[in-house]
């Protein structure tokens, strides 16, 4: 066991491409045979593998979600999305302009409410199903608060022709991260919209000027921003996340991934996933006093995967 004086800690990842490939093949095969019904179990298997190969302070993470939970969530999520479509089509079918507009209104209102609902549910589920040394993560955010943030953010984004989206994004991120618990450990995010906007504007302009070459540095800056603004709080101590992403190593990652993808016609996907995870873990260090033995179980169990499946259906990655 490392001592508390050791101020720097890293996340380790032991996943192997060949094993992940095996999991992918079994997943695909069973998904085909069951006409897609196996998909939730496939997702659970992938997550379980990736979690169990992630190590911190000599202990592995565990994903407790099950195919059954995710299947029930999947059916619910499918039901929600399909019923929205059904309303849209029924109203359009009536043919009258008023009804068509009403249908479109209901559809888009539903769809835009779905986003915060999905994020909220997904985070609650995903966090509750993650543990390390038996201590579970948790998400304590309030759904109506998140919806409020999203509606205001959406409207402001609309009237500012999209410019506000950078502030909006950071607001949501701050809210989500500050509500994550890991036992009695808390998290926070310090990034603000102005910095995020400046970083992206500069990155965008420089990428144009340099005919895209700068984009690797831009992406590196984005990664760095997202990680280095995270703070972890345990009792009175604060742990910072230090990163060592560089434009050069990011460039190397992307180029090799691209080549692998092209020459294997996509078969290298599991190896690429592993490379990406390793890249992140290799380049972040948790810096500050942390006592890995002092976490207390504080969060409750939460097994509803609807939000998680909605996120998946809406094509939003975590």
């Amino acid at each position, binding site marked *: *066991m490392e001592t508390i004086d050791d101020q720097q800690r890293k996340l380790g990842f*032991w996943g192997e491409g*060949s*094993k992940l*490939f*095996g*999991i992918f*093949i*079994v997943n*695909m*095969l069973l*998904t*085909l*045979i069951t*006409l*897609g019904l196996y*998909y939730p179990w496939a997702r659970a*298997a992938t997550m*379980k*593998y990736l979690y*169990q*190969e992630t*190590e911190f302070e*000599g*202990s*592995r993470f*565990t994903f*407790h979600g099950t195919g059954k939970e995710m299947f029930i969530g*999947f059916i619910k*999520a*499918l039901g929600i*999305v*399909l019923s929205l*479509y059904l309303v849209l089509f029924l109203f359009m079918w009536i043919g009258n302009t008023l009804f068509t507009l009403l249908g479109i209104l209901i559809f888009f209102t539903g769809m835009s409410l779905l986003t915060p609902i999905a994020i909220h549910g997904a985070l609650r589920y995903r966090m509750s199903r993650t*543990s*390390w*040394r*038996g*201590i*579970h993560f948790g998400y304590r955010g309030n759904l109506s608060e998140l919806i409020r943030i999203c509606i205001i953010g959406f409207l402001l984004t609309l009237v500012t022709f999209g410019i506000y989206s950078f502030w909006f994004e950071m607001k949501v991120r701050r809210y989500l991260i500050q509500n994550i618990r890991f*036992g009695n450990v808390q998290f926070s995010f310090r990034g603000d919209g102005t910095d995020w906007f400046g970083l992206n504007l500069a990155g965008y302009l420089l990428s144009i000027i340099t005919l895209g070459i700068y984009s690797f540095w831009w992406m590196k800056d984005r990664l760095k921003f997202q990680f280095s603004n995270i703070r972890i709080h345990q009792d009175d101590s604060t742990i910072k996340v230090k990163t060592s992403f560089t434009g050069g190593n990011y460039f190397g990652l992307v180029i090799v991934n691209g080549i692998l993808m092209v020459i294997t016609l996509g078969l290298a996907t599991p190896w690429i996933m592993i490379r990406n995870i390793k890249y992140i873990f290799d380049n972040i260090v948790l810096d500050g006093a942390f006592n*890995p*033995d*002092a*976490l*207390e*179980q504080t969060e409750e*169990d939460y097994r509803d995967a609807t939000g998680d499946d909605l996120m*998946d*259906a*809406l*094509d939003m990655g975590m």
Partner: protein
Amino acid sequence: MYEYEVKYYDGQSSRSRNAFLLLRDSHWQLIFRDENDEEQSTRWEIDQIKQNDMGSALNTFHYGDFPHQSVEIEDPTFIDDLKQKYPGLDFVNKNYHRVLTGGWKVMAGLVALTILLFALFAFVIAPNSAALIAGQIPRSFESKLGENGYQVFMTTAEEDAKRSLLVNRFAKQMDFDTDYPIRITVVESDEVNAFALPGGRIVLFSGLLDKMGSAEELAGLLGHEVGHVKHRHSIKAQMRSLSTYLFVSLLLSDVNGVTAVLMDNAKMLSNLSYSRKLEHLADEEALAVLQKNHISQSGLVDLFRTLQGEAGKEPEFLKFLSSHPLTQDRLDFAKKAAAKQRGEQENLELKAIWERIETEGKKESELPG
């Protein structure tokens, strides 16, 4: 025998305790020292130990309900020992374990099987079930779909009412052997094109009408387009692309992919790109219609010549080419059929209407603007 050094977590805190794990017949026994340095023992009933899905270098086992107790075991022989000690019980998911430790032969077999199944679904099951479903779609739905597409298309198009009337009169003189109501709309456009919508609507661009030289040619074109209507090609093509999409999105479980296909199909209603096969079927239908009406099948040959001649000239025609693969094969096919044809007669009524269509067309082009 069956004793292991493990790390034990009690589910209340993350405190790591060195413990001994003893595998007993009906349970696992864990022995460790608590914070007061007193020896403690805990018992895990076999049936409440959670299955580990994959197995890795460091295995974690959980026990009971939330909050779980857990142990971490690094011993590389542990999983094999479990199998020996408890034959018939699976602490690690058997299937995954077998695949992940099965080596390249197992993997290659699975890859081959997956590819085979994938091909079976993509090329046999999905398109055939699509055709089956397409056959079940009620007529009323079909005409509603076509009518909607037509309305959308016509919002940006200008009808040549006079020639529409004449072409419809022309079509009335022919027997298409179908109970779909055939309604033709001539649309002002330089495009050398025509398309059929589900339910019986046919849109004919004036650009094509202007280029045609005989009543037989028009009859050939109408026969071809009615063939599409009669055999519900539009619905079939749409069901096919929908089924492929559904199949892919099932695999990737991307419910939103369905949105994309609906958008695509909305576009298709105006664009209507049919596959080569459907084109060929429509050509056959056109020949049959011409034969039935005693009209010379060389009309279809002429139509293809008109289209082929256009292909070289206007880049816009590339669009037509991509949806209607106008190869030499199609021309040859029509020529061959026409050479064998017997019983064709000159239809004076059709000829008369055709002449009026031509005159209208010329008037039209003389108009300024």
